[in-house]
């Protein structure tokens, strides 16, 4: 019995972030796995207590850097709940639009990182090229291409300039054409299907028990989307249903997770078009935002990777007393040993890439 422990990480091209995966292998088959985090633990919760409420938006952007807008937005929603601030209607629509643009950019980043894991290095170039279009679009109102500091407590920093809707429409049409090409290329590729079909399977009930949320849960056929269930911003006024895929009844494998994210990109584009059409005129920032807050509040949002929840306790000063962040990837990585066992070492990049990890948010 040739069993041994292999460390994959913290420096490994597969890791998508800085963590260590220790797998116990018997020959080539994985018999156990222990993920080890903490290489990126920046103690955001502790230093967040030293900074004022509005200063923490710089820290939240860097929580999950592939999808920065959604984390700042979750934090701002929580602080607005704590302080009792009402955002204007136009700000809610702008937030919805940039959040969906961010979701598409995040899924394209995932695509650009997942395909090289499987050996399809051209996919990296395609993913990066398309993602640059969306980063340029997000740079127009916010000024930043990766970390925006755009969503503020009480609204957004600046209004969308005129001509933004036309640019966004052009970009989305380009992406739709290209996504059709990629579907032809990858869905019918025998090697891609062989590496992702029936690999890394888990059932819907297992996923719910392990705390998996977001696209990873919806790829098992569970139609649970926080933009509908626990709606916020302009989502109550938009018309959509949660997208689900599944390999077979209630089972999620790598291919269904891949398809889930492609389908979510189409859905995001539809949501952006609806929001651009319905957006009202008005202010983009609340009239006054208090400096001090007391009490407790929590809000959860649908991040690109799952359920992001922030819990804030204020003690009457201008700094938080306790700030707790829930990262969807924290629970998914903790559940990963369950759907790694029984597969081969060469399947590890396929499985761990398909759950779209971002270690910045797990390590806080």
């Amino acid at each position, binding site marked *: 019995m040739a069993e041994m422990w292999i460390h994959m990480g913290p420096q490994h091209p597969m890791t998508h972030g800085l963590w260590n995966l220790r797998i116990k292998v018997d020959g080539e088959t994985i018999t156990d796995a222990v993920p080890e985090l*903490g290489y990126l633990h920046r103690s955001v919760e502790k230093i967040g207590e030293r900074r004022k409420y509005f200063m923490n938006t710089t820290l939240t952007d860097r929580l999950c850097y592939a999808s920065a807008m959604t984390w700042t937005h979750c934090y701002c929603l929580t602080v607005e709940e704590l302080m009792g601030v009402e955002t204007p209607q136009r700000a809610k629509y702008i937030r919805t639009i940039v959040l969906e643009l961010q979701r598409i950019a995040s899924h394209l980043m995932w695509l650009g990182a997942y395909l090289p894991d499987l050996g399809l290095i051209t996919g990296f170039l395609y993913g990066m090229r398309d993602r640059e279009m969306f980063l340029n679009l997000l740079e127009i109102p916010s000024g930043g291409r990766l970390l925006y500091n755009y969503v503020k407590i009480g609204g957004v920093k600046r209004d969308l300039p005129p001509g933004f809707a036309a640019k966004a429409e052009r970009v989305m049409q380009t992406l739709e054409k290209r996504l059709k090409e990629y579907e032809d290329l990858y869905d019918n590729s025998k090697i891609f299907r062989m590496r992702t079909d029936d690999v890394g399977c888990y059932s819907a009930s297992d996923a719910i028990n392990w705390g998996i949320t977001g696209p990873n849960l919806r790829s098992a056929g569970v139609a649970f989307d926080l933009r509908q269930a*626990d709606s916020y911003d302009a989502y109550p006024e938009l018309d959509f249903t949660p997208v689900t895929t599944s390999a077979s009844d209630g089972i999620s494998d790598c291919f269904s997770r891949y398809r889930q994210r492609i389908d979510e990109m189409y859905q995001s584009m539809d949501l952006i078009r609806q929001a651009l059409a319905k957006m009202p005129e008005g202010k983009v920032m609340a009239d006054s935002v208090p400096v001090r807050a007391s009490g407790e509040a929590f809000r*959860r949002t649908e991040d690109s990777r799952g359920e992001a929840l922030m819990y804030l306790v204020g003690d009457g000063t201008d700094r938080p007393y306790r700030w*707790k962040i829930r990262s969807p990837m924290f629970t998914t990585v903790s559940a990963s040993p369950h759907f790694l066992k029984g597969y081969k070492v060469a399947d590890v990049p396929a499985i761990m890439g398909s759950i779209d990890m971002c270690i910045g948010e797990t390590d806080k």
Partner: protein
Amino acid sequence: METGKFIQQLGKHKGTSNSSALRSNVGCISVTREASPAFFTALKEDYAFDHCSLISAVDNQSGFELVYHFSIIGESGQMLEVHVDLPRDTPTIDSITHLWGGADWHEREAYDLMGIYFIGHPDLKRVLLPDGFAGHPLRKDYVYEIHEEEW
């Protein structure tokens, strides 16, 4: 079931207090530490809360407080916030890993950063900090050196 009604029903359990509705789909309740195992079992089995969203540990200087957030995976998005107070000198509580597998690492993180010990947890050790780290940093009495003069 509507939040107001089910909060009332929850309030009938032993050891609960301060039940209220925070938002239209969010309820809030406090439970004593002794009554918490039975309460959590009832939440999972009778009220079908199948997702443990978050376990936060708060250091109120007179004691610790654990704040649990549970939710139902379904269209209603029903959530419940449970507060449990723990004494400062014995911050221990029964683990809920046997009910919700997703609570596993949340409890490890609460142990790692705040020092709350979960009885019955399968593998309670540090998850974010290195193994040899001394102390629980998120406590209010944790003091560390900040090199302000070098900045």
